[in-house]
C-alpha cells in the first residue's frame, strides 16, 4: 500500500520514538485521516489532542469503514464517535461523517458502511438525516459491493420504535447491500448494546475474533441495562396557568404527589401518554354509527371501541403512510397528505362497521410526550412538577391545540396519571462546586428550575447564572417570585432577562448574552458549565451562534477555533443541551 520511501520514513519514525509517543502519533494521524483537520489546541486551555490509540496494527490489513450517523439530540453522534475510536484502536481506518455532510455519490463506492441513526417525531428520521433518508429511498444506485450494518437508536416508549433505522436497513438491503448483521434496535440505554454490536461487526468484517481492546475490560452486565420503562403514578394536586390574563401563552405548572419515592435527577424528563379528546372520539363514534361499547381486537389485546379511541390509538394528524393504507382499505383515491382520522372518515367514508373496525386497527398507538421535570428531588420530595405550555397551531384557519399539552393542562386536581421516567444522562447538574450558566427561555426554564431548586436545597457552592426570556414581563415571567427569591438569597448570582415584545425591537436571550459577553466569557473561561434548554428552533441555534461569537471575540479565537472550543466543552460534558 505504501511506497518504499514512505515505508522507510515510517520505520525511521518508529525507531526514533518511544512506544507512548508512537501511540500518540498513530492516534493523531488517524484523527487527521478522518477529519481532514486537526482539532486546534487552544491558548491557555489544555485541550490538546487526546491520545486515543493504544494498539497499532499492520496497515496492510486495514479496511476502510465509513461510519455515518444521523442524530437529533446527539446520542447517535456520541455512539458513532465512541465506535470510531474503537475502530481505530482495532487498526481499521474509519471515516466518520454526519448524514447531512455525506456526499451521495460516495454511496455506491462504499465497501463497508455502518449507519447509526435515531428515530424522531412520530417515526421520522432526524432532521439532519432527512436528505440522506430521502436519497436512499429515491436512488437507483446498486450497492452490490457494500457490506453494511445499521444500529438503530430509539425509545421503546414510542410506537414507531426505531422505525428510521429499520427502514434504512431494509432500503440498503433492497439496493443490493449485504447485511453484516441484522439491524439492532436500541432503547435509551444503548451504550452497552452499541459496544457489543460494534465488536460483532468488527469480528465479522475481519473474520477474526476481536482481541480485547482496552486494558480495562468493559464491564458487561455489571449493571444490567434497565429494560423497559420505569412507570410511576402521580396525583394532580395543582394545575395552574402561570401566564396572566392578556398573555398569548398558557403555561401550566402542574404538581403531582407521588405514591412512591421516585429516583430521578434534575434534568430528567417524564413521559406521558395523553388521551384523545372526548369530543373528537364522540364525533368519530357518531360518524361510524357505533356506540363505542363494542369490543375490538387491537394488536394482541381486545378493547371497547370507545376505550381504544380515547386512550390507545392516535387519531390526529395520521401519517401519509397510514392515509395510504386507509385509501387501500376503503378503495378510494386520497391525496398523499397527513389527515385527522375524523376527517378521513368524514370525507372518505367507510362502507360499513366492519371496515370501520379494520380502519381503527390500522391506527398507531398514541405516542408518548416528554416533559422535563421542573421539580427538584431535594427541594420537593414526594412531588413531581411539570411546566407545560399549551401547544397551539392553526388548522384551516382555526386555532387547535397540541394533544399532550392540552391534555395535561386540563387535568383536574385529584386525577391520577401514569408517567414514565425518561432519564437524560447528557443533561444533569455539574459537580457542586462548578459554576453553571443556564439558558432556558419559555418552558426551557422547566429543568433549570429543577437545577436551581436542587442547588438551593443542597447549598452547593458553584455560582449560577440564569438567562430567561418570554414575550412579556408582566404576563409571562414564569416562576417570577421564585426566581426573585433565589436572586435575593444569592442562589442565583445573576439573572438576565429578555422580554421580546415589550419594546419595538425584539429582544431575545441571545441578545442579553451578547450584552454580557465579557462576563460570560469570564465564567466560561473559569470552568463554568453551560446548559441550554427549550425550543430547538430557532432558539438553541441562535444561542449557540452567539456562544461561539462570545468565545471567539473574548477568547481571541478564530470562528473555527471557537466552534471547536465549544465542541470540546460539549465533549467534556461542560456544554449540554436539552432542546426539542
Amino acid at each position, binding site marked *: 500500500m505504501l511506497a518504499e520511501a514512505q515505508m522507510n520514513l515510517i520505520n525511521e519514525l518508529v525507531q526514533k520514538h518511544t512506544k507512548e509517543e508512537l501511540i500518540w502519533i498513530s492516534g493523531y494521524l488517524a484523527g487527521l485521516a478522518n477529519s481532514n483537520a486537526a482539532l486546534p489546541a487552544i491558548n491557555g486551555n489544555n485541550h490538546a489532542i487526546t491520545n486515543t490509540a493504544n494498539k497499532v496494527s499492520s496497515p496492510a490489513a486495514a479496511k476502510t469503514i465509513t461510519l455515518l450517523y444521523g442524530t437529533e439530540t446527539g446520542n447517535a453522534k456520541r455512539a458513532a464517535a465512541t465506535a470510531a475510536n474503537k475502530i481505530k484502536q482495532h487498526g481499521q481506518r474509519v471515516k466518520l461523517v454526519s448524514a447531512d455532510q455525506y456526499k451521495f455519490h460516495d454511496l455506491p463506492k462504499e465497501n463497508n458502511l455502518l449507519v447509526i441513526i435515531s428515530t424522531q417525531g412520530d417515526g421520522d428520521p432526524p432532521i439532519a438525516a432527512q436528505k440522506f433518508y430521502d436519497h436512499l429511498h429515491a436512488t437507483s444506485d446498486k450497492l452490490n459491493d457494500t457490506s453494511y450494518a445499521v444500529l438503530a437508536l430509539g425509545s421503546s416508549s414510542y410506537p414507531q420504535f426505531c422505525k428510521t433505522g429499520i427502514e434504512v436497513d431494509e432500503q440498503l438491503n433492497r439496493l443490493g447491500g449485504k447485511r453484516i448483521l441484522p439491524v439492532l434496535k436500541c432503547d435509551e440505554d444503548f451504550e452497552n448494546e452499541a459496544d457489543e454490536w460494534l465488536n460483532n461487526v468488527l469480528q465479522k468484517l475481519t473474520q477474526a475474533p476481536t482481541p480485547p481492546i482496552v486494558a480495562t475490560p468493559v464491564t458487561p452486565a455489571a449493571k444490567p441495562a434497565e429494560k423497559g420503562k420505569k412507570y410511576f403514578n402521580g396525583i394532580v394536586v395543582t394545575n*395552574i*396557568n*402561570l*401566564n*396572566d390574563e392578556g398573555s398569548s401563552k398558557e403555561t401550566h*405548572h402542574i404538581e403531582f404527589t407521588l405514591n412512591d419515592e421516585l429516583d430521578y435527577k434534575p434534568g430528567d424528563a417524564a413521559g406521558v401518554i395523553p388521551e384523545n379528546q372526548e369530543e373528537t372520539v364522540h364525533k368519530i363514534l357518531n360518524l361510524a354509527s357505533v356506540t363505542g361499547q363494542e369490543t375490538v381486537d387491537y394488536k394482541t389485546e381486545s378493547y371497547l371501541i370507545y376505550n381504544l379511541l380515547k386512550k390507545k390509538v392516535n387519531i390526529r394528524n395520521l401519517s401519509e403512510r397510514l392515509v395510504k393504507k386507509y385509501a387501500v382499505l376503503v378503495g378510494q383515491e386520497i391525496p398523499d397528505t397527513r389527515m385527522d382520522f375524523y376527517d378521513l372518515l368524514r370525507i372518505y367514508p367507510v362502507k360499513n362497521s366492519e371496515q370501520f373496525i379494520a380502519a381503527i386497527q390500522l391506527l398507531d398507538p398514541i405516542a408518548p410526550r416528554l416533559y422535563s421535570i421542573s421539580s427538584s428531588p431535594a427541594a420537593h420530595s414526594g412531588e413531581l412538577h411539570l411546566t407545560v405550555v399549551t401547544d397551539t397551531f392553526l388548522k384551516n384557519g382555526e386555532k387547535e391545540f397540541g394533544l399532550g399539552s392540552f391534555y395535561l393542562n386540563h387535568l383536574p386536581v385529584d386525577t391520577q396519571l401514569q408517567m414514565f421516567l425518561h432519564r437524560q444522562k447528557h443533561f444533569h447538574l455539574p459537580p457542586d462546586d462548578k459554576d453553571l450558566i443556564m439558558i432556558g427561555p419559555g418552558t426551557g426554564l422547566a429543568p433549570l428550575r429543577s437545577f436551581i431548586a436542587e442547588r438551593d436545597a443542597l447549598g452547593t457552592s458553584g455560582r449560577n447564572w440564569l438567562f430567561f426570556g418570554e414575550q412579556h*414581563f*408582566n*404576563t409571562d*415571567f*414564569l*416562576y*417570577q*417570585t*421564585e*426566581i*426573585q427569591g433565589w*436572586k435575593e438569597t444569592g442562589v442565583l448570582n445573576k*439573572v438576565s*432577562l429578555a422580554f421580546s415584545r*415589550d*419594546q419595538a425591537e425584539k429582544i431575545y436571550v441571545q441578545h442579553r448574552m451578547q450584552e454580557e459577553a465579557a462576563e460570560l466569557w469570564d465564567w466560561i473561561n473559569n470552568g463554568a458549565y453551560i446548559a441550554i434548554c427549550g425550543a430547538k428552533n430557532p432558539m438553541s441555534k441562535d444561542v449557540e451562534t452567539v456562544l461561539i461569537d462570545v468565545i471567539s471575540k473574548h477568547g481571541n479565537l478564530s470562528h473555527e477555533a471557537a466552534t471547536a472550543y465549544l465542541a470540546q466543552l460539549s465533549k467534556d460534558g461542560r456544554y449540554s443541551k436539552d432542546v426539542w
Partner: protein
Amino acid sequence: MSIPNNNLQSPVEKIKKESHGLRGNIVPAVKEPITGSVPEDVVQLVKFHGMYLQDDRDRREVRAEKKLERLYSFMIRLRLPGGVLTPDQWLALHHIAGEHSTGVIKITTRQTVQLHGVYKSHVKPTLQAFNAAKLDSIATCGDINRNVTAAAHPVASPLHEKIHGYADKISTMLMPKTRAYYEIWLDEEKLGERISEEDPLYQERYLPRKFKIGIGIPPNNDVDVLTNDLGLIAIIENNELKGFNIAVGGGLSATHGNEQTYPRLASVLGYVSVENGDENFMKAIYEVLTVQRDFGYRGDRKLARVKYTIDRLGVDGYREELEKRTGFKLEPAKPFQFTERKDWYGWNKNHKGLWYYTAFVENGRITDDVQSATKSALYLIAQTGKAMFRFTGNQNITVGDVLESDKAEINAILEKFNVTNLTDNASAIRRNSIACVAFNTCPLALAEAQRYLPTLITKLEPVLAKYNLADDEIIIRMTGCPNGCGRSPAAEIGLVGTSYGHYNLHIGGDRIGTRLNTKVADSLNEEQILNHLDGLFASYSTGKHEGETLGDFANRTLSNVPVS
C-alpha cells in the same frame, strides 16, 4: 396634645437626607429588570418626582397563585398650577395616556391629572414625552409644596386671570432646587462633581410632610380653600385685587382609631396687601413653609402636617413666628363671604366675552364609555385649537377661552359625543359628588370609592325624589379611607371607608366648605346607608327651615339623629 420629642425622626427623614438631592438609588432601581417594583427608599424618593408605586389590587391573589409578583405600575401626577392645558398639551396628554398608561385621564381633586398603570419601563419615556409638551410632574407628591390650586372658572371674577396667575408664580417659587428630575428622567448632564445643590427653603430634609396651597375667590369656594395647609383668600374691593387673607392649618385626614389625628379647616392668620407689589405676600407664603419646616413634627408622619403644628404653637404662636421671619406684621383679616361651592356647569361667558363650557366628568375619569365619549370629544376639540382645557377642584373639566365665533363648533362636538347630554342629565346630587380613586390602584383604600359611588347615587336618586329633593344641590363625597382625598370631611354627606363594603357616615358639614361634618354612624353596609339617609332626607324635607341646606339642617338637629 403632648409636645412631641423632636429628636425622633421617622424613617423617611433619613431617606430624604441621604438622597443626594432626591437622587438616591433611583436610576439602578428603575433599570433593574427582575421586578416591576422599586425598593422602599426609592418609593419615597420618586414621590418627589411626581410618582407613586402602586399595584393592581384586583389581581393580587390571582397573581400570587401564578407565582407572579404583584402587577406593579406607577401613577404619575402632573404639576399644573391652577390646572390649565393648551390644546397642544391636551393632544400630547391624550397620546401619552394611550401609549403608556391605562388610557384613562384622571382629573384629581387638586386640579391636575394623573395617569395610572405606567409600567416601570415606561416611566422615563412618559416623562420625556411630557417634557416635550412642556409638562412635568416635579413635586406633585412628597414632603414638599404640591400642586397649587386656584379658583377654576374665569367667570368667578374679572380679576380671575390675575389671581389665578399666582398659582404658577407660587408654584415656581416653591420648586425644589435639585436638578435630579432633569438628570434622571430627561438625561440632563450632571454638572461637575457636585452631587446635590443648595436649597435654602427645603434644605436636605424637605418639609416634615406634604404641603398644599389653594387660592380661593369668594363668594365661590370651588377649591375648598380652607382644606389646604395654606389657604389664600383673594380680597377684592371695587373690582380691584387688594390682597389676600392668609389661612393656615387645613388638612382633612384622620386615622381610624388614632385619637391624635383629626381633620381641620385652616385658621385665618391675617391679611397681606398686594396693592403696592406682592413681595410681602410672596415672602409670607415662603415663610409659612419655613415655620412648618422648622417646627413641624418629624417623628411621626401621622402628626406632621401643618394642622398639628399650628395647634401646638397656637394660631398666635404660628403668626408670631411667621412675622419674626417676614419682618412685617400681618394686617387683621379682611371680611369675606363664601356663599357657594360649585362648578359652573354648561356654557358661561366671562367679562371679556369668552365662552366656557364646564362638563360633568364622573369622578374625574376621562374616557369613552356608554354614557359619553368625553375623551374623544376633548381630543377633537383640542385638534381645533380653539379652546383651552381647565380642570376644576371637583374633578370636572372646562373647555374655555372660546371665541363667540367658535362656540357653535365646540358645542357641536360636545353634543355629538354626548357630553352635553351627560352634563345636563346628571342629577343635582351626582353633579355635586366627589369620590376618590380608592380601588383598584390606591394602596391605602379600605373600601371602594370611584367605582362604587355612582351606583350608590343611582340608588339614592329615587329616595331623594320621594322627598321632593331631586333638585337639592347636596354635596356628597366618598373616600375609600379616612385620608380624605375626596374631601369627604368637608361634605354635607361624607362616606368614609372602613372595610370592604363598609363606610362611616358623616353628616352636617356646610355647603360652602367652612364647617366639617360629624360622624354619626360606624361601618354601614349599603342597605344601612340607604336606610340612614332615607331617614335623614325624610326629616329634612319636613323639618328644614326656609332655605336651609341639608348640611345645616343635619348640623342643627345632630343631637336628634340616632347614632348607631
